[in-house]
């Protein structure tokens, strides 16, 4: 076996061991350790924003800044595509 393949095998086995341990140490599904923020949002969404859809109230109100970044990503993508595929002058 070449030296490169050997190094690759060692590296991948280290990664595999790390993943295995992180999978074993994961807390059980559906049971949260820290849920203070979730409880606050679930409890106060309707009274603070007046919206029934909690996801929308998080996306546009509690975490509006994240949505601004998302909209910026969309704007940049559209600008890039239009710039590449714009009509050439004949």
């Amino acid at each position, binding site marked *: 076996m070449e030296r490169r393949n050997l190094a690759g095998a060692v590296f991948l086995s280290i990664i595999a061991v790390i993943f295995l341990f992180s999978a074993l140490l994961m807390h059980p599904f559906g049971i949260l350790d820290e849920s203070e923020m979730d409880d606050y949002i679930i409890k106060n969404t309707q009274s*603070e924003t007046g919206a029934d859809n909690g996801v929308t109230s998080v996306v546009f109100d509690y975490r*509006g*800044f994240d949505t*601004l970044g998302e909209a910026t990503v969309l704007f940049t993508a559209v600008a890039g595509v239009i710039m590449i595929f714009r009509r050439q002058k004949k």
Partner: protein
Amino acid sequence: MSEMSKIVRTITAVTFPFAMIYGLYVIAHGHLTPGGGFQGGAIVASACAMIMVAFGSKWTIDRIKEKRLSVLESVGAVAFIGLAFLGLIFGGVFFSNFIAGDDIASPLFDNAALGMSDINTAGVLPLMNFAVGLKVIAGLFAIVLVMAYATSSYKEGKK
């Protein structure tokens, strides 16, 4: 992309309004039911893409220029950021929901009772949904339209 057969065009013309109304419903009820500006905008944009596939990209680009679409997208982005800055001015915090709230009594977009949200509650959330919906509709449709037209005109030029 050239136009498809008459059967496809007729069926598309029949189903297009339903897809359009469903997407606009998802945008308008974004604060009440699952969905929102992004999702409803994607539905409307796919309805417009269906029109484009059935009738051909040249037919579509003769009626809607991509410059108009990018203007619409910028209008949506400016409305979104403008609402955020209005929150900074009136509410004190960037992206604050300055219309809704217990201390502000406004006739429109006011807070309703708990669990009794209606189409006119939730403050700036519906307005932001409209802004993002406009942005997503115009942006996605502009991408699809420009790419389809560019590939078809490239083929024609090679012939």
